[in-house]
């Protein structure tokens, strides 16, 4: 180990960084692919929403993180805009999932055949009933 030149050791370190960056980007793109498969396979809007809202969030975040590390190591340029993008996606993705689910429910989209319980429908019906009784 003592005989290795400085250049060789540096290339070893870059190898590790390359491995980490590759891992991040491959896992991110695989997650996006699996989310797409989920959108095709799952039975209704709500379950598809699960797959898209979660897997894509982490997938895009990991791809962006890989890009951030790449430019930090190989171009020695810290791009704070990528960090901001990660933060914004992290904050907005669950809310968009919530809004899509809510809009679907209120425009009367049926849940899948295999659904078991529906507490929201029950409570909404109860409210309707009490309102009509008051009138």
């Amino acid at each position, binding site marked *: 180990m003592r005989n290795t030149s400085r250049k060789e050791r540096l290339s070893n370190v870059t190898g590790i960084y390359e491995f980490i960056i590759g891992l991040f980007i491959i896992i991110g793109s695989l997650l996006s692919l699996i989310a797409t498969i989920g959108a095709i396979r799952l039975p209704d809007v709500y379950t598809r929403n699960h*797959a898209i809202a979660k*897997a894509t969030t982490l997938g895009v975040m990991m791809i962006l993180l890989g890009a951030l590390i790449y430019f930090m190591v190989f171009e020695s340029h810290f791009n704070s805009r990528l960090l901001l993008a990660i933060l914004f996606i992290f904050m907005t993705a669950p809310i968009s999932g*919530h809004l899509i689910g809510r809009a679907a429910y209120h425009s009367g989209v049926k849940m899948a055949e*295999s659904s078991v319980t529906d507490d929201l429908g029950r409570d909404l019906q109860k409210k309707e009933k009490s309102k009509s009784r008051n009138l």
Partner: protein
Amino acid sequence: MAFQMLLNIFLAFTYMFMKTNFTLGSFVVGYFWGFVFLFIFRKLFNTRFYFHPVYATFKLMLLFLKALVQSTFGVVMLIVKPKLDIKPGIFALPIELRKDWEILLLSSLISLTPGTLTVQVSEDNSVLYIHAINIDDVKEEIDGIKNSFEKAILEVSR
């Protein structure tokens, strides 16, 4: 909490003026001594010492990240399994949180836990309606998780 933080920054500036040394280093040193000073006089404020909420926020962020990774792998396993044997459904969860931002935080946390997605908040802010992808094996476990989330959020805002 914000008042204590402002007071700490003010003490750091006072330290810088006394040293006549206007660098980041002296600001950090002044902030540290101001922190110690505020800790000694913490009984004089009627709110908690401001390090507690800051620490709780940090812990909440870690919890958020962990929930995201767990939920993603849970959903991925569900999709990749050759046979789809899921039982989706919507269940109601009564909550104790009342402020708007607390409910927002809790509902996004629930959206990012394994197999659950918030569908609606009731009009009087007392019940969350949650769509679960696999209701029977998830329900009890999720109640536990939610208790921990709710507790963590209460810890921040108390």
